[in-house]
């Protein structure tokens, strides 16, 4: 606002110089990859290396599932060349809004991916015989607990135990509904295609969540907010992502991520190509680039989550690997409940439940 005239002039000169350069650069065929992804999935050094090796300029937009879908829906699948939605949120969305195009697996270097994960993702993103996702990063949500309450909180529903009243936090979103349903001995995934049954499960979960409300300090809405709550000790137990738990564990060994008794909820984030992607070539280049074991390990180190890249574990930070092994023994891994694709319309039902819980006193 209060810029002196000379500095304004300097800025003008700089600006015109920058404009001239950018015009020049675009004349020299500056290729661009517009990537919409999660925090930590495109670390700066990885982006820099990719830009250096390919000459393609990468524009990263950080986002989450819902925001990604909303943005692509608003433009009919334009504005980005590559997106990273979770695998369970592709088919339903694709049927309703048609915002992606099928993956051409001949252009994906599948040799460097874990075959089981490729198969799982293909199955859950299949629509009319075509696949819409390549597996990228996977992780789980479960419980982050402080040692002082570790005896009490071993499953999602234990968050409602009077012993931890006022020291608990979870999100008011669909993973919470699903987690609670499992912990209450029901199987929401099996009821996905049976609306009435799903509704009856939701009704029970709703009742539980309303009862549990007094126990909750606040419903967390962002990862940073949750980490702050746990770091300061204001919250002793929370339902959250494994990566956040390991991050906190590195700072304070008293805080750990545990897989709940009823099973951690597993998700796989994918690569999906928006329907009006302008640089598909670059998108495939990026996929093949970041899934190389050594690069994928850098993504794991940055985001805290493991990838679908074969052999990447070798390059991962030992501390992270140890934390992962401590949270997941063989049984816990086999007990992971992987999210199946969400059928259209289910989110509306869940939305009503979440709103009712929010408004309940």
């Amino acid at each position, binding site marked *: 606002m209060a810029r002196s005239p000379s500095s304004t002039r300097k800025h003008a000169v700089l600006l015109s110089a920058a404009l001239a350069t950018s015009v020049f650069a675009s004349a020299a065929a500056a290729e661009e990859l517009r990537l919409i992804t999660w925090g930590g999935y495109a670390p700066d050094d990885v982006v820099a290396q990719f830009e250096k090796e390919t000459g393609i300029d990468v524009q990263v937009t950080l986002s989450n599932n*819902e*925001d990604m*879908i909303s943005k692509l829906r608003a433009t009919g699948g334009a504005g980005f060349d590559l997106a990273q939605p979770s695998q369970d949120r592709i088919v339903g969305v694709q049927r309703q809004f048609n915002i992606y195009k099928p993956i051409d697996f001949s252009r994906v270097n599948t040799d460097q991916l874990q075959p089981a994960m490729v198969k799982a993702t293909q199955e859950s993103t299949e629509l009319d015989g075509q696949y819409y996702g390549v597996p990228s990063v996977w992780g789980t949500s479960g419980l982050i607990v402080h040692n002082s309450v570790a005896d009490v909180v071993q499953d999602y529903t234990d968050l409602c135990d009077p012993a931890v009243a*006022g020291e608990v936090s979870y999100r008011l979103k669909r993973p919470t509904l699903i987690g609670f349903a499992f912990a209450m001995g029901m199987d929401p995934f099996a009821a996905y295609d049976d609306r009435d049954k799903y509704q009856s499960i939701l009704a029970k979960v709703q009742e539980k969540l309303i009862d549990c409300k007094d126990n*909750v300090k606040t419903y967390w809405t962002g990862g940073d907010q949750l980490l702050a709550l746990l770091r300061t*000790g204001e919250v002793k137990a929370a339902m959250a992502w494994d990566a956040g738990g390991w991050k906190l564990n590195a700072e304070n060994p008293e805080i750990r991520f545990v897989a709940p008794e009823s099973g951690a909820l597993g998700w796989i984030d994918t690569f999906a190509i928006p329907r009006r992607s302008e640089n598909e070539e670059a998108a495939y280049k990026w996929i093949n680039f970041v899934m190389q074991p050594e690069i994928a390990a850098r993504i794991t180190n940055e985001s805290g989550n493991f990838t679908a890249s074969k052999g990447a574990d070798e390059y991962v930070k030992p501390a992270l690997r140890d934390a992962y092994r401590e949270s997941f023994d063989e049984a816990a891994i086999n007990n992971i409940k992987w999210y199946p694709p969400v059928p259209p*319309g289910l989110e509306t039902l869940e939305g009503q439940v979440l709103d009712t819980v*929010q*408004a309940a006193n």
Partner: protein
Amino acid sequence: MRSSASRLSLWLLLTPFVLWIVLLVLLPHLQMLRVSFQVRESWDTLTWGLQQYQNFFTESYYWRTFVRTGVMSLFTTFLTLIIAFPIAWYIARLARGRSKGLLFMACLIPFWASELVRTYGWMILLRESGLFSSWLQALGWVDGPVEMLYNDVAVIIGLVYNGLLFMVVPLVTTLDGMDENLVEAGYDLGGGHGTVLREIVVPWAMPGIVSGCIVVFMLTLGSYLTPVLMGGKDSAWFTQQIFTQFITRFNWEQGAALGVLLLVLSSVMVWLGLKVTGQSLRKVMG
């Protein structure tokens, strides 16, 4: 010749404004109105209807949040007025020269930071491990940490803080123009403080009060960050519900209907406020 030239320049000047209003205000609102009357039959077919508006009235959490947001916004506006009036009075009537400018700056400076930063500032003060809580403990007034965040009081504090500047500025402007003799005459004729305030100062400042209240009310009603970040688990705000419908539920139809209702609510409230205080929009907005 001359008049047609000036008419042309008038139109040229108006064009950006008209484009702005039509493209960024009018059209999106009409679009939203249209979407709000669409009903999703199944996942890929749409029809027309009032379903979304029906939902609003049948699902109690929609209209309860709506009423709550309205009432809390009114209360916030009132509180802001009560707090801002003495400040504005001091700046406009009592402070002289340099201190006047300094005080005005002091009100303005917090607004150089974004709403997010201001809200986080309040969160640092109010949270359980925050400044106020540790001061209280250091003073020995409380035994353990006190949680002051995540409740309605915290939300109102944040909202009042956000609205303060927009109340102070119009008040200072109107109070500045008031003739000192009027106040003196009031006292001379035997009026006490209360009478002078009621009969002279408030009527004089009314345009400022009303315009300040309108702006603060609209800002509060439409605020999103403060209630979301500082509010507790029961304190849903209506904008939050609209956001949720659009972004997390992909239910644009319901979101649009709620948006239209919010627009109607704020318009009706402003109209009522003007009627009750006997002001007209033209007078208030100068």
